[in-house]
């Protein structure tokens, strides 16, 4: 199980990868959302604030009212934010649970897909 320290490190790398990807920023320029994440094994929660495609912050705990809620195991979150995992396959197997519109779910996957197309 991954602790908050590992998750924070993964999120920091994910934030840099996302914000520095020109194509991704252009694609998501009209996407501003609040995301909540729940680790189903450790109970750790964290948030992600996205403004016009830029990840502004990834604090521990739930902040604000979510547009999307993602629930899975901490290890899957870590692998996902490091780009070592294809989230779609986990989602289609029910290992990643999402609450939110289909459009937002796709946008979230698009981040991983654009940054790491071969994952």
């Amino acid at each position, binding site marked *: 199980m991954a602790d908050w320290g590992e998750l924070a490190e993964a999120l920091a790398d994910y934030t840099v990868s996302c914000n520095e990807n020109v194509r991704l920023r252009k694609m998501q320029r009209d996407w501003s959302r609040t995301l909540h994440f729940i680790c189903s094994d450790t109970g750790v929660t964290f948030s992600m604030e996205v403004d016009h495609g830029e990840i502004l912050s990834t604090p521990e705990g739930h902040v604000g009212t979510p547009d999307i809620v993602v629930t899975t195991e901490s290890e899957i979150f870590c692998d996902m934010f490091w780009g070592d995992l294809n989230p779609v396959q986990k989602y289609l197997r029910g290992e990643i649970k*999402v609450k939110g519109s289909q459009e937002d779910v796709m946008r979230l996957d698009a981040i991983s897909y654009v940054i790491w197309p071969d994952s």
Partner: protein
Amino acid sequence: MSGVQPAPPVARALRRSVGTATATATSAGLAFAAIDYLGVVSVLAYAPGATAAVAILIGGLIVLLVSGIFSELNGLYPTAAGIRLYLGRAVGLRTSLSVTFTYMTTVVLVIAADAFLIGAAVRHMLHEPAVLGYVWIAVLLGTALTANLLGVRFAGWVQTVVTYTVLTGTVVLSVIALFHRGTAFRHPFDLFGQGSFSGIQAIAFALFLYAAFEWVTTTAEEARTPRVITRALFIAPVLIWITSTLFALALAHLVPYSRLHGSAYPQLLLGQAALGTVGEIWMLGLTVLTALNTFNGGFLVTSRFIYAAAREGNLPRQFAWLNLRAVPWLAVTTLAVVSAVVAAVVFATGQWLLLVAVGAALESGIYAIAALCLVVLRRRETRERPFTLIAGKPLATVGIVVFTVLFLATGLSDPKNARHFSAAPIAVIAVLGVLSTGYVLVFVPRLRAAAAARTAAGRPRRRPPRPDSGGAATRAEPTDPGSVTRGR
């Protein structure tokens, strides 16, 4: 440290979520496409006059069983990928993929049918030559394609308003038509008037009127509570029942069947008979409105399915390519082109009733499989669920038999002559099934192997090892294209 893991925190409510009214409109809107007007004519072919209302009622009662089955399955797997998930858990991944691909063709058929039917209706009103049908197909699908590629999304409330307008508008015009002096309803309860099998076929085609209402389960992740989807699954069929019944009675009352049989726009004929040109324009407006739901909803659901299938390695990865508006552009374009080709073939051959028969048979087959899933998963899944179908196992078992019979009834129907049988619908389905199964058995393993090879040859794992792991992998991932595991 105790071995008991803490319960995961409860998620906060979403900023935007779907309530019962919207979910019901989504369900009814997915089901009530322009092809439903033709579906009513198909019911009338086997159950003339007021008997059609009996068939539609029986079809609606059977659909309530479908509502119960999908409510329980959706409660177990409340996700947009639900249909894939419970099919996979019940019948295995390869079978679920094959069935899901075949299921998707229903959506393509409806999109294609609507493109053709709406074009035919507009052409009729403008008194244009028949050959312009191809132009209208291209214009309608081209517009839908462009809107989708540009990421144009209709707000949820627009779709809700459109759906309730279409249903209400059809009901109102039908009621007006019923007050006209017309032919008396003959043999109102003669469900087997066209032959001993005709009643069963009428019910099978009546089932088609409700088809695709269960696709509301793909919005499970946006629902305010799981019960929202359950309520929608039970309320939407009632709305469709009321609308279809009144439309069928009005058609039988005012328009001779000989005029309906060869027509691609029975709703315009009813409008004309009820209120003259005003009625025609009224029904044309409603027909065009159905396009909003069909093209918007149908494109969205199918293209996202294609995208997800490509991302997991079950379709060529090119179908996951995104444009700068985050739209899977190749998936959307392919969908539009395939729909246009099907629509053009339907127009050239005049076989639009065959589309209805194929769609009806496919949906009956899918419902039989869903009932089978419930029987299997009742044994395997013991966890709590928000909805449990009372006497679920026996009812689902009955459902397997009933829907299989209805599948055969529509699969062997002759769209041109209610008194004859034809293998054409079932032949089309068999071809689709063979192609789908062949693709899953032959090409999917190759795609997955290629994806695994790309992954193995690609970059090393990015996640750093834990300091206390001695350089060992932090977590062993199964070797599949969905994860990155490479030697260090």
